[in-house]
């Protein structure tokens, strides 16, 4: 069975939810404390949502120097699937594992609501095998989710098929409606929406399972 590591920084708060989502998608998942230096034995790594180190300085800025991040980088370099959700996305951009940055929402307030996403690539570890153009209903929950990068980077992202998800209706001012991106290899993915919050019809949507199942599948071949 696929073994997932869910990294916990002090201030993370979606780690239990990420574990539940991954388990529903068919993996076993364990919490990994931020001082760990070894991710041996795990097939995929998730950086969950929350406020790592209180979001002090900038969201994600201090998490970069947590000891676990060296292991996450090494895991990514070997081609292992790494997914950052919300605050985890912010950590991955701060760590330089993904291009661009997440700024405050253009309306300058926190926003928790359902969003319609459009799958924009089918080669990332989170969307492998999911048809481009698939519409997914998945909640967003963030203050700093407006994706920005310079024009050259944006063109690079577009030309290299690195835009993973777009918003159907842009909720935060993100460039090119970007909700998620991946690295060139496609194994490292960051997204602002929370797929783990859309894994039960009781809670309103099971569309998050489409992404998490693709991730669990992808890790088998990684």
């Amino acid at each position, binding site marked *: 069975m696929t073994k997932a590591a869910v990294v916990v920084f*002090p*201030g993370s*708060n*979606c780690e*239990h*939810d990420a574990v*539940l989502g991954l388990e529903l998608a068919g993996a076993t998942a364990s919490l990994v*404390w931020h001082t760990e230096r070894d991710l041996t034995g795990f097939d995929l790594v998730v950086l969950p949502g*929350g*406020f790592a*180190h*209180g*979001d*002090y300085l900038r969201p994600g800025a201090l998490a970069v120097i947590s000891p676990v991040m060296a292991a996450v980088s090494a895991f990514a370099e070997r081609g292992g699937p790494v997914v950052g959700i919300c605050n985890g996305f912010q950590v991955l951009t701060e760590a330089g594992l993904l291009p661009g940055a997440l700024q405050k929402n253009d309306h300058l*307030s*926190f*926003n*928790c*609501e359902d969003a319609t996403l459009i799958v924009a690539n089918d080669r990332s570890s989170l969307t492998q095998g999911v048809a481009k153009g698939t519409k997914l209903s998945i*909640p967003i*929950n963030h*203050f700093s989710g407006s994706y920005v990068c310079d024009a050259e980077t944006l063109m690079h992202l577009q030309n290299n098929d690195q835009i993973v998800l777009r918003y159907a209706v842009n909720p935060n001012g993100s460039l090119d409606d970007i909700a998620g991106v991946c690295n060139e290899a496609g194994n490292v993915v960051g997204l602002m929406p*929370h797929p*783990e*919050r859309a*894994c*039960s*019809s*009781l*809670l*309103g949507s099971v569309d998050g399972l489409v992404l998490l199942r693709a991730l669990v599948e992808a890790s088998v071949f990684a």
Partner: protein
Amino acid sequence: MAAPSLEPIHRQLGLTDAELDLVIEVLGRQPNHLELALYSVMWSEHCSYKSSRIHLRRLPTTGDRVLVGPGENAGVIDAGDGIALAIRIESHNHPSAIEPYQGAATGVGGILRDIFTMGARPIAVMDPLFFGPPTSPRQRWLLEGVVSGVSGYGNSVGVPTIGGELTFDPCYAGNPLVNVLCLGALPTERLVLGIASGTGNLAVLLGSRTGRDGIGGVSVLASAGFSADDDQSKRPSVQVGDPYEEKRLIEACLALLDEKLVVGIQDLGGAGLVCATSETAARGRVGMDVDVDAVPTRESGMEPWEIMTSESQERMLAIVTPEGLARVQELCARWEVRATVVGRVTEPAIGSDGEPLGVLRIRHGFDGPIVAEVPASSLADDAPLYERPLARPADLDARHADRPEALPEGDVAAELLQMLRDPVWVYRQYDHQLFLNTVTGPGSNAALLRLAGPGLPPSTRGFALTTDSNPRWCSLDPRAGTALTLAESIANLACVGSTPAAVVNCLNFGNPTHPEVMWQLSESIDGLAEACRAFELPVIGGNVSLYNESAGVDIDPTPVLGLLGLVEHVAARPPVRAWAAGDSVLLAQLPEVSTSLGGSRWAREVRGHSGGILASLDAPAHAELCGAVAALVANGVAGGEQLLTAVHDVSGGGLGVALIEMALASNVGLGTSLEASATSLFGEGPSRFILGTRKVAEVTAAIEAAGGRVVMLGVAGGDNVAFGDVSIALDDARRASSALLEEATV
């Protein structure tokens, strides 16, 4: 703080001359300055409930499910499957009036600590908020600050805010109300109380350093009203919150409790360290020796009275055994939480009856000189109780006689649009989904959550929460108004299929030295007590906030009720407010319908009229009708056939507002033959539900079997809501409902 004063020191600290005499009698000597400071905060209205306690005794507090009733940090009920729920409601009105962001943020932080003190993980917050009309810049500043404060702290600390209330009325312009309810869940065997025991055990202060913020918050701020120039001079009495510190404190404390390393634990809230040490010592009837020099401080040179009364946030006091200390420090280090031994449990004093008595000693150094020594229970429990004079307001009879029913009819459609208000601007700023429990969240009749969370035994049960208040009703008749408010809460829970289990209350009233205010408080408590007995519900916790006044004018009586209900089995979502085209829309009510425009939103908000009399409540019939609706909904929620497609109780704004809200939620209109008059559309009263269904006969039979009556309102369809000849387009209604808040906050 205030300008230099020639007042004696005890009066500057908020103690009356008679209270000083009582302190001298208790101690058998003059108190020193430190001791005087301890009594002034512990005997403040906020900490001691000295004006309300004799009245609160009339509330029923026991029930089969009650594990912990009022008097502890939170009430606790047995929710089944080895899971207990801890619940509490608090006010943070006065700090929020001065510094809205921090006032609201620390209100959330404070109540979370009350919950995890009991061993429960906080899993839900609700925030009933009351402001003046949002058309003024100051009210917008307050509203935006408070909502950002709840959002900034609650989202970051990782507790979903699943609902609340938003009320605008001129009476709150000078004194907004910010109430916060928190619910936590725990494996029943982890339940722990704030009691010190075991001579030789250690008192360990966890969390933040102690600073000069919030000194005298309970006595200076929360126990006096506001005058014109107060809001600047009182700002240093507001505390500053740090949700990141609190998040680590929650995790550290729950880890300590999981390993059974804690003998007793108490949060530091109002009145800070003196409150936590004296309450744990008084409950345990032990001595508590505190080394004031051991307390980590944010700045040097803090005086003992400052250290003992500081309300610096994010601190807890744990009583641990000397053998357990090393492991406690290890776990706290993992969560980067400071843990410092600041005191120890010592032998109690012996009272005149020969029984052990708690005693609080404050020393310089563990075996150093004693700088204060007082009986702990005298601080915690023996504040003077006031039976303040009561007086029925002199103008009440004239107000009752001045019926809004006599007002001339206006443009009903325009008036209806004026009452629409969509609070989505508020709740989309709150994380309301964390922990994957929220089946229905804010914007619904009541919040319905799965009974689940990290570390809990598995369960398919659920629980429901609602907060309700109606100051318009309560200003006309606090007794009946409070009872009607509880009836509305029960109706809200019925809409999500839930059976009510326990009540908490936050009693927001004016200045208790005004006899009219004390009459309102006493009547409201009697109304709540009567209604709780009628509905067989225990009150398991509460908070009283007095001195809500501005420039000598008291707020309307505002008892806020939180009602917790249980759901046996949650397998499917309940119907929401939205019907589908073709659904039959029914009104379920009692055979004898009682509604009134007295105290209605229409009278107050549209016509500026505050007279009249209230609708009457038939509690047994109401309970039966709500039970029938709850059973219909619960059957579908449990996985059986859901006969209802939509459900909404009729409350503030009457039938007209309820029907438009449902039409907007579904984006499908409805034609009715309801008379387009204020009485018909805006009259308010209990025991009415709007139900959407395709199974009219079965639903009707279920309602009638419970003694109710069903009226067919129409079949859903189109893009208008019509009342006879008067028709309102959904597009107009949508614009109107979002106008007030969106415009107010651009």
